[in-house]
């Protein structure tokens, strides 16, 4: 057992990262990527470089059979060329789909060197660029996991219920493209992914083990993109919620943009479609990104972390954590201007019970 566990650890670079943003995260959880950069640069003093010329990895198009393999390999090669040009060797994508795509390209090029030759050739013909493969490929959740003890040492608060003093119970949900396609690319492999569980434990929380823990969130690209298939997509999330709800989790944390989005939004959809709620008092289970979780632990303001963008109200969790927040600032932007407000709905609205 010990030997197997050792085999499923991965090398995660300690510093000097080339950062590749995610297309969909910037829409769904716009504060998380900024939080990653702030945590790495300001709290941990690490060097992170990003290049504005970086593009989408086109992974969603690839998994929807719109972008062919040769094209996506060339896109990957171009991203690597930006990293090479900037003098970096540690590639850190923020998206799990992209992480799967980069892992797939590297694996393909390893097994079929002629494909790597092709990627060099296509890239050179199209752009005149050249690239080197990264020495280290780690997802942003790997990087936060790598620094989890350092974050714990700087923590302003622990994942503990301030009223009861008990550890908060967290459901960790790992993206399929993180651990299930190339198990060796993730911490703990596909059976025992530890990347998020390690964060929860290091920051004082308790990990919930429940029957459908490793089940997919149901996003699956074409499961969702075609409207007729959405019933199947939502059924997967529902199966997970039904399985986790009896364990009364205080929050869900996910490392994939799609999972965090769907576990959050599908709770709203289920509540509207059939009136089912998975948290107490017609509330949902708040769904966080690992940057948001780390940010809360480090004492960031929840609205600076972008938590007002969630569909499931996060205030019940903030109250349990003892986070001080200004409810009237929830929908104010950085410049203090009103950014708009979603319509009232049970799962998204929260009024504190004053006893």
């Amino acid at each position, binding site marked *: 057992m010990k030997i197997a566990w050792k085999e499923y650890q991965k090398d995660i670079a300690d510093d000097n990262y080339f950062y590749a943003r995610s297309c969909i995260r910037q829409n769904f959880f716009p504060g998380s990527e900024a939080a990653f950069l702030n945590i790495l640069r300001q709290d941990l003093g690490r060097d992170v470089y990003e290049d504005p010329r970086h593009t989408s990895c086109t992974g969603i198009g690839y998994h929807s059979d719109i972008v062919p393999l040769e094209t996506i390999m060339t896109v990957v090669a171009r991203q690597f060329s930006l990293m090479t040009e900037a003098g970096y060797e540690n590639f850190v994508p923020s998206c799990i789909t992209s992480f799967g795509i980069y892992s797939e390209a590297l694996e393909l090029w390893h097994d079929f060197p002629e494909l790597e030759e092709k990627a060099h050739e296509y890239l050179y013909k199209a752009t005149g660029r050249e690239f080197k493969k990264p020495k280290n490929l780690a997802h942003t959740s790997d990087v936060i996991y790598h620094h989890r003890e350092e974050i714990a040492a700087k923590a302003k608060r622990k994942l503990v219920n301030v009223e009861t003093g008990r550890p908060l119970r967290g459901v960790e949900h790992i993206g399929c493209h993180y651990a299930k396609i190339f198990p060796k690319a993730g911490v703990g492999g596909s059976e025992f992914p530890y990347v998020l569980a390690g964060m929860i434990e290091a920051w004082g929380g308790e990990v919930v083990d429940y029957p459908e823990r490793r089940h997919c969130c149901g996003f699956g690209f074409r499961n969702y993109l075609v*409207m*007729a298939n959405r*019933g*199947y997509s*939502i*059924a997967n999330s*529902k199966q997970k919620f039904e399985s986790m709800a009896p364990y009364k989790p205080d929050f869900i944390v996910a490392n994939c943009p799609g999972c965090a989005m769907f576990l959050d939004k599908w709770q709203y959809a*289920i509540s509207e*479609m059939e009136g089912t709620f998975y948290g107490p008092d017609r509330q949902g289970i708040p769904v966080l990104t690992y940057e948001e979780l780390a940010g809360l632990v480090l004492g960031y303001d929840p609205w600076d972390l972008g938590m007002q963008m969630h569909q499931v109200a996060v205030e019940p969790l903030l109250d349990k954590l003892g986070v001080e927040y200004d409810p009237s600032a929830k929908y104010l932007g950085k410049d203090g201007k009103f950014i708009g407000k979603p319509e009232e709905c049970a799962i998204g609205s929260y009024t504190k019970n004053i006893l």
Partner: protein
Amino acid sequence: MVNWGYTITRVRRVDIDSNDMSYSRKLLAEFPELQSCIACGSCTATCTAGNLTKFNVRKLQTLVRRGEYEGVRKELEKCMLCGKCRLVCPRGINIRGLVQKLKKELPVK
């Protein structure tokens, strides 16, 4: 309730935790050899009724063992009681006998 143009698909998963396993347990107590089934599918492959219809005797007995009884009794009416399944079963299970028993005991649902 809101209608966005799709519904939540019903999960077609066998859930042993929530299924009523009482009949299944009784059956296994009276027909213990059923537990030695290795799910090879020889019974289904040789089945006369199965050659003509979608009747699948391995599937039906597996469903019953897992507490899924819906539609089984009706499906069993397709069996011709020829007994070929019993001859080929590598575990010597009396499948035809099982079919007769289920036809007697399972309610029509």
